[in-house]
């Protein structure tokens, strides 16, 4: 089961967790990315490429499902403007065994950073700026390149 959502509404952790539980899974791992509250950002706006986004997330989820034998995975990404402390993205992966659930979650969040068409714009007191991609993100994504479709 693959559940992808790209939405302006707040992410409900219990609801996303519940989507992947059941079906005999012994292990559920999740990752939630949150707008930092400690670096002077007043608001974060996520722009995306609507015609492409869900397919890109589905591809990432399907890859992880194959590689780690997941029983279910959900990737919910918020778009639009959000405030410090609000959730940007949630990945939840269910598998028979714990290491598969955890590794699948790590792979999905790393690949999300480099293979999904989102762009972050931060509002600071001094004005707005587009977040620059980080070389570390490419390196983290490259780690998963073996064994992918």
């Amino acid at each position, binding site marked *: 089961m693959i559940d992808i959502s790209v939405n302006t509404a707040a992410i409900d952790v219990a609801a996303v967790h519940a989507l992947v539980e059941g079906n005999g899974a012994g292990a559920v791992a999740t990752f939630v990315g949150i707008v930092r509250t400690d670096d002077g950002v007043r608001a974060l706006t996520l722009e995306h490429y609507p015609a*492409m986004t869900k397919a890109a997330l589905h591809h990432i989820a399907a890859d992880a499902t194959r590689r780690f034998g997941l029983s279910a995975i959900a990737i919910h990404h918020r778009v639009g403007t959000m405030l410090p402390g609000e959730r940007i993205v949630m990945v939840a992966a269910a598998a028979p065994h714990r290491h598969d659930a955890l590794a699948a979650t790590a792979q999905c969040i790393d690949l999300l*950073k480099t293979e999904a068409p989102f*762009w*972050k714009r931060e509002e600071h007191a001094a004005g707005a700026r587009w977040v620059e991609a980080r070389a570390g993100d490419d390196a983290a994504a490259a780690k998963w390149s073996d064994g992918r479709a």
Partner: protein
Amino acid sequence: MALTILYFAWVRERVGLAEERLTPPDDIGTVAQLIGWLAQRSPGHAAAFGEPERLRAAVDQQFRPLEATISGASEVAIFPPVTGG
């Protein structure tokens, strides 16, 4: 052939448009060539496309390198490196 061209993030802001529909000359065969041609359209386009090494692209909604062909494509998107997640 007419092409839908989409811009995101600061590329969109500099161009001043989210989308335009254009018919590039026949000798524009790759994304990089398209970027060079677009740069001449306006000062905003020039500001957006002056440093191609800062740009990434999707052709028909698939991420593609700038050397990729646009032959037969109906939609090309040009944007900075992605920063989601």
